[in-house]
């Protein structure tokens, strides 16, 4: 989605501030939000792409002014309701109850046979590859010159705005991977060949590239890419 999360190359976010000896989590609610998300995703509540899409749709001002773990929390609030696991009214009432002094139940009062803990531990250790055996022949070969699609997307996509309509070179092929644009919207996995594309910094930023600029790499699906011919390259991509 062409939204405010797509910040590559956007100026005005200030300096990078790095904090020494930062803890993994800096508050209990961060631990809770993260654990809720991981446990839910491990149990198949939503795919990672749906989670990212939910975060992107939280509203631009909210997105930019809240932290990483709050993004996860917002996405889970939306997805758990959307999937029918939690009712929105029940959620709102429960928030109010905690604000009015309710406590979390004691450990002992929650039924817990340890099974879910084993499941999530296994899932974290195993992961879920996004590569799929499709037998598809990749359209591009390493060394091929390509141009990315110049269009914004109203739906979830992993082509950042700064790399729209830019020329690059294929430097790696990773087999076919689940297409986020499709899975994020429950339209199936639709795996597509995935490539690493190298962009010369000058082809991304023109004169605004740094002195002695190098290159930026993106991992892009086949449908994001158009073959680049020696001339007239953009005749085919300047109209859909």
């Amino acid at each position, binding site marked *: 989605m062409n939204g405010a999360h797509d910040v590559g190359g956007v100026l005005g976010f200030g300096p990078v501030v790095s904090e020494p000896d930062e803890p993994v989590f800096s508050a209990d609610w961060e631990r809770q939000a993260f654990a809720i998300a991981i446990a839910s995703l491990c149990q198949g509540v939503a795919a990672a792409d749906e989670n990212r899409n939910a975060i992107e749709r939280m509203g631009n001002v909210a997105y930019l002014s809240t932290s990483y773990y709050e993004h996860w929390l917002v996405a889970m609030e939306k997805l758990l309701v959307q999937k029918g696991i939690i009712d929105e009214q029940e*959620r709102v009432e429960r928030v109010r109850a905690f604000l009015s002094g309710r406590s979390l139940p004691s450990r002992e009062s929650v039924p817990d*046979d340890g099974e879910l803990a084993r499941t999530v531990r296994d899932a974290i250790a195993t992961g879920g590859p996004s590569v799929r055996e499709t037998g598809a022949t990749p359209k591009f070969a390493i060394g091929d010159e390509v141009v990315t699609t110049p269009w914004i997307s109203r739906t979830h996509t992993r082509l950042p705005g700064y790399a729209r309509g830019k020329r690059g070179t294929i430097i790696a092929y990773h087999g076919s991977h689940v297409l986020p644009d499709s899975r994020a919207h429950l339209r199936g996995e639709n795996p597509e060949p995935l490539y690493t594309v190298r962009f010369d910094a000058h082809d991304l930023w023109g004169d605004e590239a740094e002195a002695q600029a190098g290159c930026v790499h993106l991992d892009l699906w086949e449908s994001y890419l158009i073959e680049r011919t020696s001339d007239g390259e953009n005749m085919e991509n300047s109209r859909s």
Partner: protein
Amino acid sequence: MSGHHPEQMSEVEARARALESLLYEKGMLTPSAVDAIVDAFEHEIGPLNGAKVVARAWVDPEYRERLRANATAAIAELGFAGTQGEHMVAVENTPEVHNVVVCTLCSCYPWPVLGLPPKWYKDLAYRSRVVLEPRAVLKEFGTELPDEVDVRVWDSSAEIRYLVIPERPAGTEDMTEEQLAGLVTRDSMIGVAPALVPDRR
């Protein structure tokens, strides 16, 4: 995880607890699952894993080749694998090439080797700037690169996760693999800093 005075609870705290308690009731969450997840990322999975991979690559040229050819498999040899590390690629810093990793669209990060990302990696400033002005950002981290060095940024837009193999510092010929791992910082494996130089007092 409780123990806060209710009157001090912020809205975000209440929202997290609301979901936690509702999921307990729905049988979709258990206290031991929460503990398992938090413990995994607070105590088990962190940059020490990546440091072991890098140290092995420094001492074992054959391992280094395997790591460069198929990082997922080579990292699994050391027992590291899983969520957000399903498709690993290792990129090697040399005197001619410097690699640095980002995820501009969210904050993708190679969890099995580095754990959860530091705040600055997730912040808008790093995400927005490092693709446009990597040299300037690296300089703010104290990493000033000679003009001749080819700066390569890796923006993790798919499920491929990147691990930077920093250059092995000079004067470490006599160090053990374990000692070498102590020089490999999280920042050096993201690519914003070199590995530590051994202390020679």
